[in-house]
């Protein structure tokens, strides 16, 4: 199997995992974030399952440092806890709770044809462009 084929399959498996887990249902996400209400802790199990497998996948990646196709693996090396890391994540969490969508599930729901997801994704792309172009330029 080629590298490109595996990337496409990884995307499909990721999407199917998101759908099965309940992450693509905004009301389920909001039920998970509503810890003081009628809390639905299901989505905590998504993280448990993903890390259970991911731990071994990434450990293997760190040990070998090369892919199955003998190319170098680029693992993020940043360790600095910056102000941007925290503020950006706080902003992201607020948006996640407002809509019930984070980036992956929104793209899956867009693929399923939901108008709301299309609207969300367009705004998300705009938010990314504003950060990467306007904000980063103004900061300099």
């Amino acid at each position, binding site marked *: 199997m080629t590298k490109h084929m*595996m*990337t*496409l*399959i*990884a995307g499909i*498996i*990721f*999407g*199917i*995992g998101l*759908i*099965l887990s*309940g992450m693509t*249902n*905004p009301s*389920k996400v*909001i039920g998970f974030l509503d*810890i003081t*209400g*009628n809390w*639905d802790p*299901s989505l905590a199990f*998504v993280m448990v*399952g*993903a890390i*259970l*497998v*991911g*731990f071994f996948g*990434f450990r*293997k990646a760190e040990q070998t440092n*090369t892919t199955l196709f003998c190319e170098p*693996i680029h693992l993020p090396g940043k*360790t*600095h806890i910056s102000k*941007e*890391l*925290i503020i950006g994540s*706080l902003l*992201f*969490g*607020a*948006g*996640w709770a*407002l*809509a019930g969508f*984070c*980036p992956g599930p929104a793209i899956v*729901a867009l*693929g*399923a044809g939901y108008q*709301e997801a299309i*609207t969300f*994704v367009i705004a998300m792309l*705009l*938010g*990314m*462009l*504003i950060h*990467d172009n306007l904000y980063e330029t103004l900061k300099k």
Partner: protein
Amino acid sequence: MENFTPIQSLVGGLLIGLSASILILSSGKIAGISGIVAGLMQFKNTSKEHYIWRILFITGLVISSYLYSLLMPLPATEISASYSTLMIAGLLVGFGTRMGSGCTSGHGICGLSRLSLRSLIATMSFMLSGFIVTYVLVHVI
């Protein structure tokens, strides 16, 4: 707790972890959706390789619900936010994930799988603001 689905969520999570492992071990890339998407809108100093894997992975996400529906009925997607709320939320998610260098997948799954302290702080931050905003929306307003 009438909607509690620990088994489906756990199995879904295992698949997500499997996907992230396949991607890192075959392409050497991190399955962080916000970073993959933002990379498609970068036009400086980029090679063909920069785009190909991103397009393929996103294509997989886009067609996944169709493929899922061939295997079993799709679960509900209940969206209660108005279009104006969705736009504000999208802007916050887009801007915030870029500023914080990742989202639920990049930090919450890949980063935590690598036991990264940076990703743990990011995950705690977006969970915290998610809890607070939900509390305000559901119980205060």
